[in-house]
């Protein structure tokens, strides 16, 4: 074994990585997003996607949805550290495979191709309620709403059909049934 010259503890065996969707309610004030994102970058946590918008104008609340991966220990730390931030009101945490939670991501896909290919592209998107937002005889902008994995797949298939640009929102989440998260 190589003789260690460092007094820091060597890295321990990592636990299993899980993908979690973390929902954060924050006061909608200047620099609040940077506090949340800075926490992730400063402590070395990963952000796969991020969606944020004001959800309550009266109470000045924004809702941030972050998709992240980490060991159970890291996820627990993320939640606890987020709760310490002053503008954070509450924090929700869901595993990506949680059946009681709906996850959705929206994508705007621009296809530049002939009408035949555009038609094929629409058929490919059929399962995801495609809406044509704009169409010319050599292009179309299609909106789909689906899971991240599904959009990943669709964009792969659409590449040869003339997909030139994709804009995605990142995942947002909502629990099923009458329950709300606390």
């Amino acid at each position: 074994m190589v003789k260690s010259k460092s007094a820091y503890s060597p890295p321990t065996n990592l636990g299993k990585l899980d993908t979690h969707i973390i929902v954060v309610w924050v006061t909608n004030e200047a620099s609040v997003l940077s506090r949340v994102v800075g926490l992730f970058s400063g402590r070395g946590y990963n952000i796969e996607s991020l969606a944020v918008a004001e959800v309550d104008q009266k109470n000045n609340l924004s809702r941030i949805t972050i998709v992240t991966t980490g060991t159970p220990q890291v996820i627990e730390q993320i939640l606890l550290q987020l709760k310490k931030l002053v503008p954070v009101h509450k924090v929700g945490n869901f595993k990506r495979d949680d059946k009681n939670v709906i996850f959705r991501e929206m994508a705007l896909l621009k296809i530049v191709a002939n009408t035949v290919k555009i038609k094929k592209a629409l058929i490919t998107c059929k399962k995801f309620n495609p809406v044509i937002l704009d169409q010319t005889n050599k292009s179309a902008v299609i909106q789909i709403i689906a899971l991240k994995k599904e959009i990943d797949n669709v964009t792969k298939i659409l590449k040869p059909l003339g997909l030139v640009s994709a804009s995605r929102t990142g995942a947002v989440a909502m629990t099923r049934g009458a329950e709300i998260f606390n």
Partner: protein
Amino acid sequence: MSKLYSGAEIVFKSLEDQKVEHIFGYPGGAVLPIYDELKNHPSIKHILVRHEQGAGHAAEGYARSTGKPGVVLVTSGPGATNVVTALTDAYMDSVPLVCISGQVPTHLIGTDAFQECDTTGITRPCTKHNWLVKDINDLPRIMHEAFEVATTGRPGPVLVDIPKDIQFAKAKYFKPKKEKKLKEKSLNRFNQKDIDQLVDLMKKASKPIFYSGGGVINSGPKASELLRELVSLTGFPITSTLQGLGAYPGDDDQFLGMLGMHGTFEANNAMHDCDLLINIGARFDDRITGKIDEFSPKSKKVHIDIDPSSINKIIKVDLSIVGDVADVIKSITKTLQKKNLNLEKSNKQKISKWWQQIEKWRTKQSLNFINSDTVIKPQHAVQRLYELTKDRDTYITTEVGQHQMWAAQHYKFNKPNRWMTSGGLGTMGYGLPAAVGVQVAHPEKLVIDIAGEASILMTMQEISTAVQYNLPIKIFILNNQYMGMVRQWQELLHEKNYSESYSKALPDFVKLAEAYGCVGIRAENPDELDEKIEEMINTDRPVIFDCHVDQAENCYPMIPSGKPHNQMLLGPNDQEKNKISGKGKALV
């Protein structure tokens, strides 16, 4: 209609309402309106430092020795960036600071104006929270909130950035609302079930240990009293982190000394072999745990902390109790008494074996060193300093390095808030300005900065502050002409390649003291040490004490790199006996 006040007036009115008596600062263009207002508030005394980092550390020393928040006032741009080290230091060691910084006028923000910087952006990761005041009407609320955030829950630094136009603008002022609690952030979140579970573990334990930290100090002097009561009621041994020293009397028989990288042999071995580890207000820092995989492998672990994010961050624990240390200890003691459990008596037999083992470890006398007649050993110097000052209520600050560890090992603290050292961030240059802050808070007390010659040069300028305000601080420099801890690591880990750790040119500290208008004393051999220390103590002015010590001395015992607690490296006395060679050397 109620009266309108300028932003600068509002700043001072809120400082008055928060009962602030001292602020540490340095003026500049963007805070001039606030400085202009200073003259109208005689209850608030401003201490002019020589560098903003010094203001920050002085406020830390002030806060840690009084339990009250320290207040810092600096200008925009370089004023704010200079204070960043102190803010980070306070953040790491949970010291309540309120830093007020000037900013360029609102309409110039973002234009790269003169002395502009993104202060809130720069300080976001090193404060609990910060505010850029964009509307004068928000200022009273923000000022009160700043003090509340800094002092509640786990304390820490905050910063309020006030643009110059806001300092001139006018608004109504309102007093802080009383008893307004920050939602869920300062609350105790434990219940009797947790306490019962802990008491049950304590009853069953045969090798228990308390491991207490800075949280006990931060919880207030009452927490230290309660801790002493609990320890005596249980008969358990107790060890402490660097920051926790003083919460439990350093000369008590149940105290095993400090633990961790330079902790005692008995404390670290007890941590390794115990079957119940009760962490009270400490955070399993990496200088404490050593190798994480092999940290205290046989124990049930309990963690008492006010900050829920400290729990399970590094070490997984079996029972966590989130709450203020004083409240938690009170509940434990109450429960023990209610159940009529005097563990000291009932558990005596079980624990007495444990104590026998501890006594065996104690015979190693791991803090021992080979003393000399010709050259002052640094440990000897600290011991003499302790013996000659222990009868006074002495406040000790330190810089960072070997001298800091020797101070922690050989100076025995009996009261909380008497020991100010930079632990988490390890900021060289902390001790001198911190001593300034301590002396401001306690003008009649003896305040000593145990220093190294390399650290002291980093914030040397603050001796000028001490002279200006007649603060009779004592700078006790253990001068070995090396960055001692760097040199030690280079000797042990980098084949004695002393790369850039020797200071070829050092000032004559006695003459330097005279140049600053204070007193310089030099000690060069063990015979004159006591007499010179007495002279220092009896001088009612700031003193720089240049104590020439053995250049080659290393700080032992030591947990070598990546090793668990039970594989400590002992001092030369023991090494001589056991002749560590060949394979053993690889342990380093």
